[in-house]
Every structure is written in C-alpha cells, then in structure tokens.
C-alpha cells in the first residue's frame, strides 16, 4: 500500500493500481471513452487526464496508464485539466455529433457544443477501439479491425463487407461508448451495424421451450468449440437464457412457481 493525495484528500492505495482505478474506487468521476476494466488500457482518448505532482514531476498524465506511487499528488479537476478536457470533448463531439451518450458525457463536463462541428454527422465513431479490442482479445472472433490511417482510420470488418468471422455475440455493440456500432434483433434476425455499413446478419435460433429467437448458430457453435464439456452440453439443449435458468432452477430446487 502507498500513501498519496487525491483531490486534497490523503488516502492509501494498492501500488499496482492506476490513478484511474484508485480514483474510481473513491467515487471520483474521471471521464473515459477508450477504457474498460475487462481490457488492457489503450490510452488513446486522453479524456482521463489528471494533473499530478509530488513524487511525479508536475504536469498532466494519462490516468488510465499511470500507476500510483508513494507521495503522489493528483488533482482530477484542476483548471488546466478541466480546460484541456473540454477541448478534447469539442474535438470528439465533432466526430460523433449524434451520439446521445457522448453528448450527455460532454455536457456533464461543461461542453455543450463544438466549434469544429461541420453540420453533417460522421459515423459517430470516436475510434476508441473498444469493439476491435474486445472482439480480438476477449471474444477471439477477430471480426473487426482498424483500416486506413490518420483521420480516415475506421473501424470496419475485414474487407468492408459482411464479416465471415463475426459470431453475432453483440459484445461490440454493448461496449461501444457512443452507440456507433449497434445490434438489433428483429423478425428472427440479428443485425449488427454501423451508420454506414452492416457488420453481420444472422438468422437466430429459436428456444426449444419458449420459441423466442435468442442467438445465432455461429455463436452457439463458437461457445461449444471454446468451452468445456459441461458448457457444451448445456448449449446443445438450445434454450434461451431465461428458459435455461428456469430449467436449471427446477432441476436444482425441484419446482418453480412462474
């Protein structure tokens, strides 16, 4: 454990944590876009900047990749941090002008419009890379990638067409902080799409008990392939999560009132 100062309060913290992790543990809201607890820090959105001093040379640091240390002084709301963060929000809003989530987040930090807003909305993607990283590092489907470079860097499927690798789990849509990539289940079909293209479409398997469409065959095969025998058996029963839980509960407890 180390001793440090966080927003004028002296606290103790485990030394293998980052400033962001420690701050969040203490209920301090540092905005982020490209950070997610389940993934390695990416450090690209720069929203999580904080001002440091004490045992680190005075200046601004990226809190999601900066480890805490003894004698560290952190200010998450200094004038300099607030000003720079607002500017970063302005840049991001110009890229993602229709995203309710980003608009709300920016407003929370005092930014209501962007001087760089060009009038026509882009793809609302802030290139945080969460979708690419989760699909690659956690799910292991490798359906998404970054293509091109610079301002034109875009999240896309391989070859910018319907992805052969996508399994239809929808984790990308869940993790996207701006709603740039979305998932829709309609009429027995799942579509994962962005503003300008469709990532993948799947016919959904229907639950053997209640008949609702619940997952793509590709996803079920993927789970079977990548899990142990017990899980594979469970998946083979072709039950939606609700019915699966119910039958599980009945098996365990004997019966269940609906």
């Amino acid at each position: 454990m180390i001793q440090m100062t966080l927003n004028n309060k002296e606290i103790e913290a485990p030394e293998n944590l980052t400033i962001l992790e420690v701050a969040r543990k203490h209920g301090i809201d540092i905005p982020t876009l490209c950070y997610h607890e389940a993934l390695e820090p990416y450090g690209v959105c720069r929203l999580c900047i904080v001002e440091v001093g004490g045992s680190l040379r005075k200046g601004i640091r990226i809190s999601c990749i900066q480890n805490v240390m003894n004698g560290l002084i952190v200010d998450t709301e200094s004038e300099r941090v607030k000003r720079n963060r607002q500017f970063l929000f302005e840049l991001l809003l110009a890229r993602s002008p229709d995203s309710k989530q980003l608009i709300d987040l920016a407003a929370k930090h005092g930014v209501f419009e962007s001087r760089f807003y060009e009038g026509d909305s882009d793809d609302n993607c802030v290139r945080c890379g969460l979708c690419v990283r989760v699909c690659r590092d956690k799910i292991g489907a490798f359906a998404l990638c970054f293509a091109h470079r610079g301002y034109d860097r875009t999240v896309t499927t391989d070859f910018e067409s319907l992805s052969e690798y996508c399994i239809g789990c929808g984790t990308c849509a869940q993790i996207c902080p701006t709603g740039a990539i979305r998932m829709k289940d309609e009429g027995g079909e799942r579509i994962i799409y962005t503003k300008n293209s469709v990532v993948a479409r799947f016919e959904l398997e229907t639950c053997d008990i209640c008949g609702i469409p619940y997952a793509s065959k590709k996803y079920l095969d993927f789970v079977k392939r990548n899990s142990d025998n017990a899980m594979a058996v469970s998946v083979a029963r072709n039950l939606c999560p609700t019915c699966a839980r119910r039958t599980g509960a009945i098996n365990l407890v004997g019966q269940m009132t609906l």
Partner: protein
Amino acid sequence: MKIKNMKDLDKVKEIGMKSLFPKGPQIRISMSTCGLALGADDLFQKITEEKEKTGIRISLHQTGCSGFCDLEPMAIVRLPGKPALLYTRVTVESVEQIIQDIQKKKIPQKGLFCTIGSDSVTAMPDPVLNEIPDYQDVTPFKGQHRMLLENCGIIDPLSVAEYVAMAGYSALFKALHQMRPEEVIKEVVESGLRGRGGAWFPTGFKWDMASKSSGDEKFVICNADEGDPGAYKDRTIMEGNPLKLFEGIVLAGYAIGSHHGIIYLREEYHHTFGFLNTAIEIAKRFGLLGKNILSSGFNFSLNIVRGGGSYVCGEETALMDSLEGEVGDPRLRPPFPIEKGLWARPTIVNNVETLSNVPLIIQNGGKWYKNIGTEKAKGTKILSVIGNVKHPGLYEVPLGTNLKQVIFEMAGGPVNGKSIKAVQVGSPFGTFIPADKLDVSLDPEALREIGSMIGSGVIVALDQDACIVDILHHLLTFFVEESCGKCVPCREGVSRMEELMIEIYNGRAGMKELDILNELGETARDFSLCALGGGAPAPILNGIKDFKKDFEAHIKTGKCLRFS
C-alpha cells in the same frame, strides 16, 4: 574467401590498395539512386562501349554518391602518376573525348571540378594540376569534417577490399578478438555518442541497459526508414559505404549480446533494397556476417525488411509493431524496447548514422571521439541542407558548427542575389528561425534553448520569395497524411489544424482562427501519444508568432506572398 585473421585482413587490404591506386588509368562512376536518376547508367554503358571500341585498358568501377546529387553524374578519373580527379555533371556526349584524352595521357578538361587528396606517393608535379583546387579547398566540400561520409563517392561500395584498405573492419576485428562486450560499451559510453535519428538519446547508455536486460534472444534494429522529408543521409551511407554500417551493426550486436540484426528500410528506396541485399551476400562470403565472423566464434545474421510506406513507422515502437506484422501504431511506454521490444525481447533501435559512427569509435577510442563536437553533443552531424541555397547537399560538420556559417559560407547562401527569410532546422518538426537569429550553434542544447531542435539534421533554407503560410500548410498536410490515427489529440487535433490552415491560406479566416489554431497546437503538443502529434505543432505555433506579416497577407487580402 573468408577473412579469418590479421594476415587475411592485410592480404585483402593490399588488394584494396591496388584497386584504389592502380598502375593504369581508372574511371569511377557514381551509381547511387541519384546518379541513376540523372543518367549514370547511360554514362557507364557508353564508357564500356568506348572501352571496347578503342581497346583502351581502363579499370571501370562504380561508387556511391557524395551527397551532392546535383553535381551528378560524377566521375573520378585516375591517370597514372596523378592524383584522382573529380568530374561533375558528366554527359554521355563527353565520353569519347574523355577516353581520347586518357589514351593520350592528357587530363580531360570538361567538367573537371577538383583533385581528390594529395596522393603524394604517386603524384608528380604538374603545372596543369596546380590550377585545379583540391577537394578540401573547394565549395561545397570545403570546411567539412567527413568521417562518416569519407568513403562515399570514392570507394566501390560493394568492394570489401577497398573498404578494408580504408581501415574498414579493423574495429570489428579488434572488438571480436581483443575486447569484451562490456569494453565495447564502455568506449561508446565514453565517446558520448547520441542517437542521430532525431531523439539524441545516449547510445552507450541504451546499449548498457540492453546488455543487462535478461532474455533468451536480443535484437539489433537499424532504423533505415529515413522518413523526414529532406533527409537522405542514410541512403547515402547505405549506397556509398554499406559495409561500414554492417560493421557498426555487428559491433552493436556483440556489445549487447544479440545475434540477429534487422535493417528496416524505407519502402521508397527501391534501388537501395536490392543493393543492400547484394552487399549482405558479399559480406557473408568474406566471413563478415553470418556464422563465426572473422573467425571469432561470434555469430550474427542480418536481414533487410522493407517498410510499407508510413512515416510513423520510423518511430521505434511503431517500427517494431510493423516488423511483427502489425500496423505501425506507436506503443505505450513503459515497457521500453530495451526491456521488451521486438517480440517482447530486449531490443535496441539505432539510426543508420548512429551505427556508422561506431566503427570509428572502436577503432580510435571513445576519448578521441570526445574531442569533436560540443560539451554535451559529441562527434559530427551530417546535415542535409536543402531549399533556396546555391549548393544543396550533405554537409558533415562537427556538432557546434554555426548555422550561419553552414548556410552562407559552406552552402553558398541564397541564389540570384536574394536574401534568406528563414531557416528551418530539424525539419519537419523544427521551427523556422528568422534571418536575424541564424547565429546559433548547431547542437541539440543550443537549439532547444531557442525553442527549436536539430532532429535528424534537415535544414531548409527559405528566401524572400517564400511564404511561411504556404510552407506551414505543406507541413501540416504531411503530418495529417502520416498520422497513424490512434490517439485523439493528433488524429483530430492536427487534422483540424490543417483545415484551419487551408482557410487561412485562402483568406477565409481571421484572428479568431489563429487563436483556435494555437489551442489545437497546444493540445496536440501536450497530449499526443507519440512524437508525431507531439512535435507537429512546434513549427506551426512558432511560425504564427514570428512571421505575422505572412499571416496578415493571407488573412487580410487572401493573397500569398509568393505571388506578390
């Protein structure tokens, strides 16, 4: 033949001396990328034809480029008993006369530029020659301290014998047979050598850390991406004296305990790629690369990987990502390459010019090297002086040389009686230094003090007809095209800077936009992930401050000073 011991080395040296100072007449033609672009291959072909036609006995060789490409095609003619003669801008039409003159033992006149060195051993007094200045006394070679470029344009770059005759491989032989790796590192540390790619990080310190890193495998990467527009010093070394570079790489490997080297070569250097591969094969044949180098028991393999055409891949972590088959996204640091670099192994990444200094340091000692340069920056620097000067080219000078001296004395100053408006040192990230502030020492510390930087040594001279807004806009388009796009401040910030600069250029913006440009610049400077986004704003922000007239012309009238 594999060189195994001092005897072999001496034998090869003798062959080299005979080749460099032959008994009969000799012609050497510069055949680097620049020479080829100006017709050197046609020239070589014509000389070969004339040789056959006339039956004259002349040895014909290729050389690299001296760095003054606008004097190409260059030829060196050696007549028995006379010092070597340098000819510039040699034409195919003049070949017949040259051959005729050589046959008559006369000195060919057309294009004669200077003599090279006082070969007092073979030279005899000649009234004609007394009129001709020597290499060391003639612009643009005058005043230079050419130790890295010493052999470029003079020796056959693919001749091991000629390089050995010029003291090549004596350093590697000494190191592998008489020094321990720690002693090699000690000399490099003592020399004060700092990275010449632009970062100026102490090389010996880097090697020392890497040698202490634990790992089953270590790598030496030679950064030959040379992305800074205006820079071609590395190409000149690679095409003029590749064996010196290889020697430096092997020395680096020996020092840190690595057996694998990779040269990451700029994609746009097509000719250099084939050329370097040939040089590697030749070096292997002589036992200078591969297994049991110089019979020392030390193994080191070297191969070349072509880049994909991306400036950001010149940044060491992006370069390593590129070598691993990924896109060139700069990595977060720590961890640093010396701990976890290529394939997570300890790696050193060094520039071509940096590595080319090492044989000299080992040969002559770190103490000797320390005598050149300033207190904190030792050795020479190859400067690429381009733009509105009479003699654009590569100038190798001791660190600490005055910028004014380089521009006005060595490079001849501006052309056509114009005046210099500004000079950018360390392009593309350096600031534009106004004409009245050029009295500054060319070393990293002095330049940092005036808010500028030395970078890889590209010096751009602008005369009175240039417009700073046009040049800054041009720089911004470069940064925007080369940004990897990973982080927000660079991808979004620098792009918006370019958009605003276009508006300013076209007279559609005002002072308000200049303020926003400043804010964008400060954000990119302070928060970008790597030095591309971090360095891009400097010339822009300083340009706005120091060249108000250029900006006012655009803002108030929409007219560019270039066309006024």
